[in-house]
């Protein structure tokens, strides 16, 4: 009974949020639509990241590698292979990030805890130095530009006047589609037997090993899936930005992905999504407000860790359960 009502209210909440998202371009100005698109893209990245942190108990400080690899795969295939279709970009980008995640993951999952974190970070910087140093291929710090990709198998092209405006509106819905797909797929993954094994590994890896679970193999699978989701976010991100520099591969960007996940709350499924959306606004307005926005974000992070380690979703569900308890008295 209880299960049913909570599931029903979750479904109702989900659909009303979806309905709200679908009308956004019609009521908000284009800048806000663009900003929200960025937020949704980052939400996919954080969702993927949290499969490792929240569900497998591995903190990666190297996810910039997968986000950036996705973005660079798009930019390089546009430049050297003449690819223009977004679907082709997604296929190329996700495959290449999955490949990189498979190689790096194989090394990282031999370790846990801090050593895993710094190893993931050190390895991610291989990609960064390559993008930074191989100037002839990647343009170094100048970065690469891409034109507007065509959407839906080439049926939507964006050329001529007003193409920017049309792209921003169409692309918003495109990203919504991937965002919902990512949510559903991730939900299925974490609630599948595979996801349950990951959680048992997170809670007690020795015990999981003893009951016969191939712990390292499962961690490796989780690493690849996690990297691929974050790679997809990188692929979806670059048509918005239309320019990529090695900055998205540099490790402080990994820190931002960790930051937004913890901000939302890594112990809940939806936490990283809430955190990414919130962080996106926080960072955008902090940059607009002060030159020293990094310091502001740093202070927020320090206060968060000390005072509110459960993040936004943790605080809200805490308040909600307190109110419910209060109502019963």
């Amino acid at each position, binding site marked *: 009974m209880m299960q049913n009502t909570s599931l029903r209210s979750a479904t109702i909440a989900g659909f009303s949020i979806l309905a709200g998202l679908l009308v956004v371009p019609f009521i908000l100005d284009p800048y806000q639509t663009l900003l929200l698109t960025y937020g949704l893209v980052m939400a996919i990245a954080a969702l993927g990241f949290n499969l490792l942190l929240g569900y497998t108990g591995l903190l990666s400080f190297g996810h910039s590698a997968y986000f950036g690899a996705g973005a660079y795969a798009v930019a390089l295939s546009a430049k050297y292979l003449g690819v223009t279709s977004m679907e082709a970009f997604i296929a190329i980008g996700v495959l290449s990030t999955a490949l990189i995640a498979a190689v790096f993951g194989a090394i990282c999952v031999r*370790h846990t805890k*801090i050593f895993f974190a710094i190893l993931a970070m*050190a390895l991610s910087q291989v990609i960064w130095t390559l993008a930074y140093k*191989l100037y002839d291929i990647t343009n170094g710090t100048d970065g690469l530009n891409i034109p507007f990709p065509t959407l839906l198998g080439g049926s939507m092209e964006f050329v001529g006047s007003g193409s920017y405006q049309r792209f921003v509106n169409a692309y918003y819905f495109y990203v919504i589609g991937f965002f919902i797909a990512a949510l559903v797929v991730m939900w299925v993954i974490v609630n599948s037997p595979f996801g349950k094994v990951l959680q048992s590994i997170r809670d007690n890896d020795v015990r999981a090993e003893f009951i016969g679970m191939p712990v390292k193999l499962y961690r490796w699978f989780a690493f690849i899936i996690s990297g691929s989701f974050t790679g997809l976010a990188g692929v979806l991100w670059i048509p918005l930005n239309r320019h990529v520099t090695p900055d998205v591969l540099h490790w402080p960007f990994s820190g931002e992905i960790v930051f937004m996940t913890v901000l939302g709350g890594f112990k809940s499924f939806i936490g990283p999504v809430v955190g990414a959306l919130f962080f996106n606004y926080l960072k955008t307005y902090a940059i607009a407000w002060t030159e020293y926005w990094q*310091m502001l*974000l740093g202070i927020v992070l320090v206060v968060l*860790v000390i005072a509110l*380690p459960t993040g936004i979703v943790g605080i809200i569900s805490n308040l909600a359960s307190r109110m419910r308890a209060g109502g019963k008295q």
Partner: protein
Amino acid sequence: MDIFVFQILNSLFYASVLFLIAAGLSLIYGVMGIVNLAHGSFFALGAYVTATALRAAGDVVPAPVLFLLLPTGAIVVGLVGLVVEPVLLRTLYKRGGEEYPLLITFGLLLILEDAMRFIWGGNPLPAGKLVEYLGSISILDLSYPAYGLFVIAIGAVAGIGLWLFVYKTRFGSVLRATSQDMKMASNLGVNTSMVYMAAFGVGSLMVGLGGAIIVPYQTAVLGMGMDALILAFVVVVIGGLGSLKGALVGALAVSFVRTLGIQFFPEIELAVLYIIAALVLLVRPTGLFGGKI
């Protein structure tokens, strides 16, 4: 032959600085089980503070006296460490979980990077007077900046000093006891809060010294700490996190590979370094000398 000697000296120079950074990182990890992500920013802070001191005093005092100002960066960073540990980190020990110290020190990194930009602006801060003063000396047929040799000597002295401190003093054995079993040490009457604070302070002092001695030779710039941290990670991954011997061997290995790389394959020099680190890990998962101090 000349270029060979030159490159060996260069490698030893970078190894000295890298050892100071990595030894600080390893000391803190060995005792407290914490990796300080702001460690690289501490390095940059040491460089900026010493550069400021050298520039301010440069026109007033004679050059030899400037050597006395060199440690200012180390001292300031050591003091910052003594404040950071009780204020930011101490609340987290009871909560458990490695992620929180990493997160909070990442927050500290963001704050420090902007604080340095606020204080010193975006322009590089050169302070090369000491290098000019010492001039160069000729070895075989080649002239090498004498300051480089001075840095190598500092690295050696600091390494020996740290080793004596950890292995030959009473406080060092208290430090190692806490590192091996914090609760037992606490039960035996060791003030472990004090030990943690001291370890974090000494680790910070080391990395600050690294920044301080490199700045007459290399200009202090924003972002220098970010790269230094990653290199220090490669050092501890190769040498073993938490081991001082590992920090020394790792620093030497990384420096020699980098020097070779800059000479022969400049574009992928760093990538080669990471591949070596990954190979070491495949053979020795905890690094060459992994384990406790």
